[in-house]
């Protein structure tokens, strides 16, 4: 496939890895923000090619993993309501709430549907005027424009049976949270390329300067990631604090401005609770008051929800890069992708799932 396979060429990747080895003189800790990058690293075994001096820690950039338990429990309650069609991205179906998941709701008779695009949910609403259609609008800056677009369209179409359960999270506030933590070990960042494709990377220079960490906008193919690491190492080794772009075939400084406009039209900033981490100030988006009519939380008053997280799960520490999956006592035993205790094991972008799927040998050799 053109413009994909080229970035998976072994020789090119090994060439960049050799450059990294030449450039590095001491140990560095680098965090890749995005779960898609974590998976690419494990899937291609990129970590096996890196010099020992580089420690990659895995960031909180998996939208499925960080969606709060309260909101998942709300989703389960709404999806169980008679007369509701609950539409969701596929990944969310397996995420456990307090005791059950959307699969269980579907097995108990709930009408839960997997959609490939939020616009499909809108179409379902048009086709089923007698039902209430709720879309689980989760994700980072990447999914926000399309999610927002459905709200604009629903308003234009005067659809009274469509609403969204919103849990949007943003990357820059999470980076602030990680870097200002007293236990932070991260010295350089690979910024999430697809988030930057939408938002640009103009928000990053102040972060780099404030915390003294270089940031490199990085893509998702093996060559992209190797290149992102190389550029980070170059800056670290030369004491340079800056933001660079290793994904210029997709990302510009300004980002996708029409998409940003749609986001700003529909959403407004809010504090957001991240599963396993806690509330991060101004890290989320919620619907603006003029779109309240499409807010599923207002349309379906669920009442107080009591949540219960598994005491075994250390997803929070994993999402902050403080621990790695093999350090969890439940990993691979009580917690597996088919019976996950925590969200990091659930999502195809979750860190635990990546380790479980591609690198179980690492875990088995861990004493």
């Amino acid at each position, binding site marked *: 496939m053109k413009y994909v396979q080229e970035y*998976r060429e072994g020789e090119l990747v090994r060439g960049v890895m050799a450059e990294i080895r030449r450039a590095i003189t001491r140990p560095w800790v680098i965090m890749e923000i995005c779960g898609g990058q974590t998976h690419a690293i494990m*899937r*291609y075994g990129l970590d096996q090619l890196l010099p020992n001096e580089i420690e990659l820690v895995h960031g909180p950039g998996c939208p499925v993993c960080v969606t709060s338990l309260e909101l998942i429990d709300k989703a389960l309650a709404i999806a169980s309501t008679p007369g509701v069609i609950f539409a969701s991205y596929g990944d969310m179906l397996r995420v456990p709430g307090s005791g059950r998941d959307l*699969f269980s709701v579907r097995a108990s008779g709930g009408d839960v549907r997997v959609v490939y695009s939020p616009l*499909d949910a809108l179409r379902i609403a048009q086709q089923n005027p007698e039902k209430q259609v709720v879309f689980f609008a989760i994700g980072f800056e990447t999914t926000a424009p399309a999610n927002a677009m459905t709200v604009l369209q629903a308003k234009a179409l005067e659809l009274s049976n469509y609403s969204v359960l919103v849990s949007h999270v943003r990357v820059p506030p999470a980076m602030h949270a990680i870097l200002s933590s007293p236990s932070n070990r991260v010295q350089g960042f690979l910024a999430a390329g697809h988030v930057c494709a939408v938002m640009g990377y103009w928000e990053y220079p102040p972060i780099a300067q404030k915390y003294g960490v270089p940031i490199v906008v990085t893509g998702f193919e093996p060559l992209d990631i190797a290149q992102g690491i190389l550029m980070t190492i170059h800056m670290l080794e030369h004491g340079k604090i800056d933001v660079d772009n290793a994904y210029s075939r997709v990302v510009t400084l300004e980002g996708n401005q029409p998409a940003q406009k749609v986001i700003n039209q529909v959403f407004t900033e809010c504090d957001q609770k991240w599963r396993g981490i806690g509330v991060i100030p101004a890290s989320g988006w919620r619907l603006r008051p003029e779109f309240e009519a499409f807010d599923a939380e207002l349309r379906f008053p669920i009442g107080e929800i009591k949540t219960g997280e598994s005491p075994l799960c250390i997803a929070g520490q994993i999402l902050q890069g403080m621990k790695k999956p093999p350090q969890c006592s439940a990993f691979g035993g009580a917690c597996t*992708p088919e019976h996950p205790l925590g969200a990091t094991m659930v999502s195809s*972008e979750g860190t635990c799932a990546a380790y479980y799927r591609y690198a179980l040998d690492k875990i088995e050799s861990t004493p």
Partner: protein
Amino acid sequence: MSESRLPTLEGAVCPVPLSHKDLIVLGHGSGGKLSHDLITSMFLPAFDNPALRAGDDAGLVQPNACTQLAISTDSHVVWPLFFPGGDIGRLAVCGTVNDVSMLGANPLYLSAGFILEEGLEVDVLKKIISSMQAAASEAGIQIVAGDTKVVQKGKADGLFINTTGVGLIQPGLEIGGALARPGDVVILSGSIGDHGIAVLAARGELGFETDVHSDVAPLNHLVASILEVSDGVHVLRDPTRGGLATSLNEIAHQSGVCITIDEDSIPVKPAVLAVCEMLGFDPLYVANEGKLIAIVAQEDAETILSTMRKQPYGEGATIIGDVKESPQGRVLMKTRIGTTRIVDMLAGEMLPRIC
């Protein structure tokens, strides 16, 4: 079949008890780990016998000293009923013919049970029956028993078909999932993922079109051609639900060996790869209905390969890896960039990624 050779169907880690789930979910039918959990915790203890415990696509039974039979059954619930390259009728015949063939048996007879939904158009049924007839005649088998039930509207998705097949195994022939040996070569009969992607695209939910056709086909003639030129065939398996990755994991477990494959050698059509990239699927886990894995003695590999390539359903045959002693029960893949990673079974349902 000796007791010592009987493997378990357990996954790569301790299987977690099903008591966590009180309800059957779709993932239990995915052919991946949840299905295996269900089999090992519910069906096996109840129906336990050596044929079932072998964990192969068909059960091997020996009613008398000189007769070995392979018996397999499969229910088909595919939706939509018609898709590019096939339909539920062709699938129902080929699926069972192939399962029987994977023990090296010559499939002879099929039964067919139909569950029809009230309101199904008779013309649709007619088309499906004619497709079954064509597939049966291509495979050279007869459908000798049948059953029809009609359920109320809404209780079935148009129609479901169950087929059961019986085949005869030549005396002395031993082929099964537990017989892979270190040093063996792993051959794949052609490109992977065609069926799964064709059916997914036919549902019309993707928002884009592809020209991918299902590979659904009877593989018994291909199997017969292989057995004619070699007695070094140890394992045959058609990687259906759960895909190539899940089938290889099953074999690695059953045989207590490590299977290593080379990412670059696995054929995937560009259109299949493109859809997988867009949805976040790995072609290794996408279903096939006309492909087989043959694990064979190294010295026979080239002969088998050239024989397969002369057959219509084996033209794309290629060597994708080999069998090693350890780590037992594992499938490892040499990636395109020269590293090694684990290839695990499919966990539950395959889900499109969020972004």
